[in-house]
């Protein structure tokens, strides 16, 4: 059997968009190797059968009281059991905080090769070939597998969810599994203030650099972000100056992002920043300095004072989006 197992992710009791993206890519790959696409979910999701429209045949919903909160070792154990039963030849997951934690350990357990944080996947001569950025996107490499089970995690927004069978329902298989004795228990979860998608999953990002001059000035970026449904990021210079917390940092020692639209405000475009956002589909630069290196990489740009331009953009977007 050459089935593909997708490790799905849930948010708010529903299947996340990243899983729909990955299921769509998996369906395309399955077509090339003649297998079916299956999804594994930890917990129950509302409407999980609708993954059928993306080409998924089966959804395994693994439930265990012990896994109501995420646990690395427990999740590895139940997934390893599922893999032993289903024998997929390819296992795919998302390069999310969960996937990055879980998949390397699962791969080690399964004696499988793993390519992390990929931006594309293909089948060549019946085997998976994964494409991934290295050196934070300063170079690209293809990964080939030497193992029976081939695993990859992919970056959010790498693929477009494709409905291939409108209205089709995936078969739901409920599985009760024992994650064993758990160590490393979560004592509490400290909720972030933002209900926006994480930078790594955001489809639109508005980012500020050193030119923001102060933490409170990020308010104008937040206002723009609210209007266009964006998540706010920052450059390393802005973070190191104390204008923004580190979990907002985009770049080589921050988050690597992959949005459809990246609006950089007062960011000159240092090599390590560019590394973190260069796969953005459309880049917009707003900077006072016409010589800012980012202008040579941007699809669109405005030479001007961000404190003037950004509020004008917010106003303009408000106007046209109300139409």
């Amino acid at each position: 059997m050459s089935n593909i197992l997708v490790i799905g992710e849930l948010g708010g009791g529903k299947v996340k968009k990243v899983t729909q993206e990955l299921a769509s890519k998996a369906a395309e790959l399955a077509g090339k190797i003649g297998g079916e696409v299956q999804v594994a979910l930890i917990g129950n999701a509302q409407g999980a059968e609708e993954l059928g429209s993306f080409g998924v045949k089966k959804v395994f919903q693994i439930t265990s009281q012990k896994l109501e909160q995420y646990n690395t070792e427990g999740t590895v154990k139940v997934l390893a059991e599922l893999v032993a039963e289903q024998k997929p030849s390819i296992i795919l997951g998302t390069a999310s905080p969960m996937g990055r934690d879980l998949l390397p350990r699962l791969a080690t357990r399964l004696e499988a090769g793993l390519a992390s944080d990929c931006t594309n996947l293909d089948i060549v001569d019946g085997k998976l070939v994964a494409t991934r950025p290295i050196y934070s996107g300063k170079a690209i490499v293809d990964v080939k597998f030497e193992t029976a089970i081939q695993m990859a995690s992919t970056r959010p927004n790498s693929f477009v969810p494709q409905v291939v069978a409108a209205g089709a329902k995936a078969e739901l298989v409920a599985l009760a599994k024992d994650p064993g004795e758990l160590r490393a228990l979560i004592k509490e979860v400290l909720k972030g203030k933002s209900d926006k998608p994480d930078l790594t999953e955001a489809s639109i990002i508005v980012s500020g650099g050193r030119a923001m001059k102060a933490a409170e000035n990020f308010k104008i970026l937040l206002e723009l972000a609210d209007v266009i449904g964006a998540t706010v990021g920052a450059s390393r210079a802005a973070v190191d100056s104390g204008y923004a917390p580190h979990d907002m940092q985009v770049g080589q020692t921050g988050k690597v992002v992959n949005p459809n639209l990246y609006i950089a405000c007062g960011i000159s475009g240092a090599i390590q920043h560019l590394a973190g956002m260069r796969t953005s589909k459309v880049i917009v630069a707003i900077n006072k300095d016409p010589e800012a290196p980012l202008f040579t990489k941007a699809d669109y740009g405005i030479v001007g004072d961000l404190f003037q331009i950004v509020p004008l953009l917010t106003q303009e977007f408000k106007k046209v989006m109300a139409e």
Partner: protein
Amino acid sequence: MKIAVLVKQVPDTETKIRIKGDSSGIETDGIKFVVNPYDEYAIEEAIKTKEKNGGGEVIVVSMGPARTVESIRTALAMGADRGIHIDDAGLQADSHVTAKILAAALQKEGGVEVIFCGKQAIDGDCSQVVQGVAELLGISQVMIAVKFDLREDKKGALIQRRIGGGSQEVYDVSFPVIVGAEKGLNTPRFASLPGIMKAKTKPLAVLKAAELLGESKPRVSFVNYRLPPERKAGKILQGQEPAQMAAELVKLLREEAKVI
């Protein structure tokens, strides 16, 4: 308390990457190599943990070619006690092979209660070795750690892990544990001049990677190294009224790029 730090030497973040003529890797001539930035937080946390514990030993473990010794000395100058250099000359390593060798070195050392490392190395960006070592040693892991508090009984720690969207999970873990350090965990100290002098005479053992590896083989191979497609400059608006440029940009994003 025995504390280990796993360190990797990587090209500096300012490095411009060049690809070898046969696409088999990158040109390393002229590259400035530094301690992987995330590993600096690991080194700092290891030293801090030893201080809080009121004693113990910090062992720096690093695999790589001869130049790797510079990074071990940097950690020793910051305050680590001794180093282990795993010489990987002639070895083809992927994340699995690296994890296997590091786990074997830690097993050989024995009795290590806490292992700190960076959450990922900024060269390969795989972020797989830490979890691999955890699995091979059969111990708990906490990745992307931004806070580490030694428990009162000194037999475990409360560790905060960043999970995205500004949220964090707080773990209560008994040792042994391996921790993947994220930026923000601490502010790494600079090596003092006396520290640098002392580092020169601290013990440094050398192990052979091939001997630690045993029968294991790489599970993946990297081929066809290349540079990403160059992005070209697009439409840059300037010299007009700000309001006019803002309106033009919004129009372009909606009608030409169709991203909003």
